[in-house]
């Protein structure tokens, strides 16, 4: 390590935001290129991180630690492991795309790009922070740019949506903050010195009851972020009203903070409570899977449909995490990335058609496959990826999750399996109504197919979707060790034994000679 790549990942975009704001008013044409270049630079850093990452090591790497607010033992403490690695990569990947997707913003493009870059820095910070207060700071502060993104550049009902988004999530964070403070008070008593250091807090021994309360405090915050049924109603509004880039980031990365939080903090810090409550959360997740899908089926608004599909998909992630089996959790992690790609792509597509017709009503369309074959192709492809078609990324995650969860939550997992069916229902039905048949409306006949820029935006996502679907090995290999550590820890701390472990799977490639 010759340079602090993690810090750069966080601060390059943040500094970038400052740069963008600092650009002279008359050189407005520079804004987008500069912002794009900076986000690409960040992506490059992320790429460096992925390639330098030591796959076999399940611990934290590239760790940076300097005491900042020392009086309370708050450190500037960063580190990356297999769980956060690809979330960081995903974030860095989605932002250049988001920027490219919003080149047509007329209202204050400068501020828009600055907000995006700030958001990127904060998001990456969330995934890298190893100090609870630092985590909370990033977790909370990114509400601000997101709030402005929705509130200033959103749709008709943007104000309510923005306010709802901010307050709802802030409410969760309030409990998270109390939990964090309480945890550090515990540390103060047990370790003699106050600390918010994740790694040190792991050594605390917390009474069972305290674990329940803390699990609850952290859990509410994350459950709202995920969002887990029944805390999901902020999501359709926010997703629907946000500008395209906003929705992409919101669905692609922001939601993952919740699942990531569950995995990083609840599972490791409160293993006892985790084991006890796993079934409950898995149940909520499954409700979310079916519920989100069912609601998505009848949505008249294309963007809302995709938003509710997120509820369903994130349910899979949570189910996998609380399966507490290495397959399930790894599936959950990789599914976070998958969902980021597929749903991100879906929002991009919806945004493209919205730019042309300025309506998201499904009923307003029909038969546009004839006038927009390329667009239709991309949409269908993404829809199938989202529906978990084998050979595409979505399948790998869902397959791991379902098969990994069954041995711990049989009944729930069987119900969850029907989510796969419903996904096909709402996506194909929507596709049928929007794309097939003869284009009857004049506006639809006049539509123009997507151009090179838009295809250029989509192709990288498609490429990744296929890559992750056919050859997920490099990703899985890096996720596994970190996940193993989490599970090991739970097993050490509690009497829980994971029903399915990689190591006792007989991977025999012997020939079948019947």
């Amino acid at each position: 390590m010759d340079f602090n790549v993690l810090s750069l990942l966080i601060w390059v975009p943040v500094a970038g935001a400052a740069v963008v704001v600092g650009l002279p008013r008359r050189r407005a044409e520079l804004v987008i290129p500069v912002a794009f270049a900076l986000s690409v630079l960040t992506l490059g850093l992320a790429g460096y991180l992925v390639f330098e990452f030591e796959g076999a090591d399940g611990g934290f790497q590239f760790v940076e630690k300097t005491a900042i607010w020392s009086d309370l033992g708050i450190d500037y403490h960063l580190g990356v492991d297999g769980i956060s690695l690809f979330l960081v990569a995903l974030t860095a990947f989605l932002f250049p795309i988001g920027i490219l997707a919003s080149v047509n913003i007329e209202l204050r493009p400068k501020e828009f790009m600055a907000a995006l870059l700030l958001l990127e820095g904060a998001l990456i910070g969330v995934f890298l922070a190893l100090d609870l207060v630092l985590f909370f700071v990033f977790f909370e502060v990114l509400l601000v740019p997101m709030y402005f993104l929705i509130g200033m550049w959103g749709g008709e009902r943007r104000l309510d949506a923005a306010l709802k988004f901010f307050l709802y999530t802030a409410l969760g964070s309030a409990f998270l903050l109390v939990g964090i403070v309480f945890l550090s008070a515990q540390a103060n008593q047990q370790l003699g010195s106050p600390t918010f250091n994740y790694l040190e807090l792991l050594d605390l021994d917390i009474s069972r009851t305290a674990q329940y309360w803390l699990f609850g405090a952290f859990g509410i915050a994350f459950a709202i972020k995920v969002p887990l049924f029944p805390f999901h109603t902020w999501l359709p509004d926010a997703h629907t009203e946000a500008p395209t880039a906003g929705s992409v980031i919101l669905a692609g990365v922001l939601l993952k903070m919740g699942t990531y939080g569950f995995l990083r903090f609840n599972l490791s810090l409160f293993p006892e409570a985790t084991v006890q409550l796993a079934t409950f959360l898995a149940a909520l997740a499954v409700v979310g899977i079916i519920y989100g899908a069912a609601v998505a089926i009848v949505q008249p608004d294309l963007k809302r449909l995709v938003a509710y599909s997120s509820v369903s998909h994130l349910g899979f992630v949570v189910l996998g995490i609380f399966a507490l089996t290495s397959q399930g959790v790894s599936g959950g992690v990789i599914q976070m990335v998958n969902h980021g790609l597929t749903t991100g792509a879906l929002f991009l597509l919806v945004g493209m058609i919205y730019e042309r017709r300025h309506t998201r009503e499904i009923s307003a369309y029909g038969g546009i496959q004839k006038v927009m074959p390329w667009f239709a192709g991309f949409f269908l492809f993404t829809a199938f990826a989202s529906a978990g078609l084998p050979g595409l990324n979505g399948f790998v995650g869902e397959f791991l999750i379902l098969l990994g969860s069954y041995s711990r939550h049989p009944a729930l997992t069987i119900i969850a399996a029907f989510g796969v069916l419903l996904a096909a229902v709402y996506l194909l039905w929507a596709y049928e109504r929007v794309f097939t048949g003869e284009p009857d409306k004049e506006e639809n006949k006049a539509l123009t197919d997507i151009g090179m820029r838009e295809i250029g935006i989509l192709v990288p996502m498609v490429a990744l979707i296929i890559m992750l679907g056919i050859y997920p090995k490099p990703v899985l290999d890096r996720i596994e060790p970190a996940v193993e550590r989490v599970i090991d820890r739970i097993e050490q701390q509690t009497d829980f034994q994971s029903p399915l472990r990689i190591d006792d799977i007989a991977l025999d490639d012997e020939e079948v000679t019947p």
Partner: protein
Amino acid sequence: MTDYLWIVIALPLAGAVFLHFFGQRLGEPWAGIVATSTIGAGFIYALVAAGDFFTGTGHGETIHLFDWIAPLGANAELLWDPLSAVMTLTVTGVGTLIHLYSIGYMHGDPRYGRFFTNLNFFAASMLILVLADNFGLLFVGWELVGLSSYLLISFWFTKPSAAAAGKKAFIVNRIGDVGFLIGLMLILANFSTLTYGTVLEEPARFITAGTATAITLMLLLGAAGKSAQIPLYFWLPDAMEGPTPVSALIHAATMVTAGVYMVARAASLFELSAFSMGTVATIGAFTALFAATIALKQRDIKRVLAFSTISQLGYMFLAVGTGAYIAGIFHLFTHAFFKALLFLGSGSVIHAMNDEQDMAKMGGLRTVMPVTHATMFVGWLAIIGIPPLAGFWSKDEILALVFGEGGWYGFLWVIGLVTALLTAVYMTRWMQLTFWGEARWDDGVHPHESPAVMTVPLLALAAGSALFGLINTPFKGFFQPAFEHFLEPSFEAIEMAHLPSGATPYVLAVISVAAAALGAWYATRRYRGENAFERAPVAEGRTGLWRWVDNGYYVDDIIGNLLVLPGKLVAAWTAFVFDSDVIDGSVRAVGGGVRRIGGWLRPLQTGFVRNYAAVTFAGVVGLLVWFVSRGVS
């Protein structure tokens, strides 16, 4: 040789990718030629690779390509054994002919290139399915063929009915796939891996009969979806919305047989549970009968064949459910030929009649389309089971083996026999209404024989339908059951059904041939003359029953009104009442409540100094009470 087996998959896949980008630009006929040659090359390669099996010296082997989802033991590994060889050869062989035929059939279609893209993609997916070495990869092929079938059924997407049919096909298949998925969950939970090597070799090591029943029934659900068996058969008739070659390749010859293949492949699992076997056989038998009855009154030239396909698939399920795996696969093999032949023939007819599909407007085509008619004649004999054509050998072997099992299977044999009779009836009716009798063409329709590129495949398939039965006759010498010997290695560990001893097989053969002949004779007489196409097979009067048959027993309506509609209503209620009013409502209520409380408190701030002082004083008193009480105690 087998090390490069992946080429068989890679060729059509590469073809698909290439055509996806250049197909449209390539245009006619080159796109078709490229597609055909890729799969044809695949066929040849497979033929060579299977060489050892022909000589009987070959043994199954696994080819590891790369890790896919290692934690589940689901890697990109191919299994090359006689069973997968047969399937590969069928898929590529019949596939090649149908590709060739399509070159002509799709002539003039604006999305000519796209069609061959999808066709090639389907071939690749199907090959993944049959060559997979673990249930994971099998499931990949399983779903991908579903996808390509979706794409091809709704190929003419501007036709709403076609789009709807494609969606229906995919979703119904997904229902089965959910079952399949649950089966895989059970497998992983019990075997900790999905590789055939562990799961299929003496599964008794890991699981009890009960677990086996659970697993196999779940897999069966998947198979029923893919192979259009009761209760998930009803997508297949609609699938006829697709171009005819698609119906021939996907919905007759290959994809729909995936279920049969899967059951045969997982034989060792099914063997563990007599109940599952019985279920498979029973479902098969009843589907065969049920579909056959519906076929009796269809007017659409292709829908007849669709129901006939369902019925024939029923035979195959009956076979594998009886333990007659090889017979089942054999019927799969022969059926691939004669059913593809019949479909392509009907395609040729539709082509000639300017896309007319109603048999009411056909008839008397024998004269104008001699080649087509000749080949159809062969196909007809083959399917109704007239010796020595292919259908006879395969179907009768099945019936004989079922009979041999006795007991409940005896009853299933009766059903099978009745179905054979009905098959003869509806297929004869089909021939009668299409090719024989007087012409009922619309004005301006001038039927003509199809071009060579279409008739050549017909002839080839006809030859296959005529001859390939001979490779598996129960006799000695030249007529030894070569097919059986070929497949045996794949089923060594399995205890198979046996032919009844002595002369019984021959007696049974005579009976079923008699049944077929009877049916054919009856149908030729009943469907001669005026308005034959409206006639019910047996005397009028009990029209009530026939209205039921006409409408396929109203299954679609029942499903539509009892499942889909309520489902949509529930979803709508959840979305627009529960979600928006109850859940979001409570959220909004909290927000609004907070504001309202503020509103309630405001009037307390009266603005009168006295009140302010009073509140302050109240606070004073409160504090004093607290402190003094602390102090006194």
